């Protein structure tokens, strides 16, 4: 109640400098939580609040592979190589990598996509991609 009464008085006296509000808020937060600013600066530049866990990436990549018509689901492991272990040809590999793109809402450039020929590489790519969702 007292605070409510004080509010207009305080607001009248406060002058906000026209600096961007985000760093201001962050430094204000830093005063009460010393690590808040550090955390705010260190957070990944992603539109998603919670980044995917590696476990989640692995599970979903495995699922994508298992659902490809040419793949024997029992052979799918996080270490499998598309061609040597799963018997996929280069066209299948394109399909699989495209399916992974779709699953994680990514667009993998050709140069990168050409290199992905195994589950470890696919998992690595998605796990390191800040926009994977």
């Amino acid at each position: 109640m007292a605070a409510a009464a004080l509010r207009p008085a305080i607001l009248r006296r406060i002058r906000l400098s026209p600096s961007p509000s985000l760093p201001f808020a962050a430094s204000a937060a830093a005063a009460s939580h010393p690590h808040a600013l550090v955390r705010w600066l260190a957070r990944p530049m992603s539109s998603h609040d919670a980044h995917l866990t590696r476990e989640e990436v692995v599970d979903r990549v495995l699922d994508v592979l298992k659902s490809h018509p040419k793949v024997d689901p029992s052979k799918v492991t996080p270490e499998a190589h598309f061609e040597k272990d799963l018997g996929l040809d280069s066209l299948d590999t394109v399909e699989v990598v495209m399916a992974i793109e779709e699953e994680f809402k990514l667009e993998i450039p050709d140069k990168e996509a050409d290199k992905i020929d195994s589950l470890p590489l696919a998992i690595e790519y998605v796990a390191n991609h800040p926009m994977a969702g």
Partner: protein
Amino acid sequence: MASRPKISGIQKQVLALYRGFLRTARLKAPEERRRIESVVSAEFRDNARNVDRRNFVYIEYLLRRGKRQLEQLKNPDITGLATLEVKK
């Protein structure tokens, strides 16, 4: 092929073209997308099986033809694949 040969430049182009078709198919209606995917996949697989991999002249020709067809398919008004089915 005992040891797996490195992917050649021309093979990369073929795979990039395939990827281009699949990407473009995504932009079409679901029904159409499935049809495009199955026709395109059949065409690529058929050629992969039947075209001599040393016949660069013919492969280059197929690549050019494919790129032209892909450009047409990118047109949002185009939903059909009649041109792809003209063969043999």
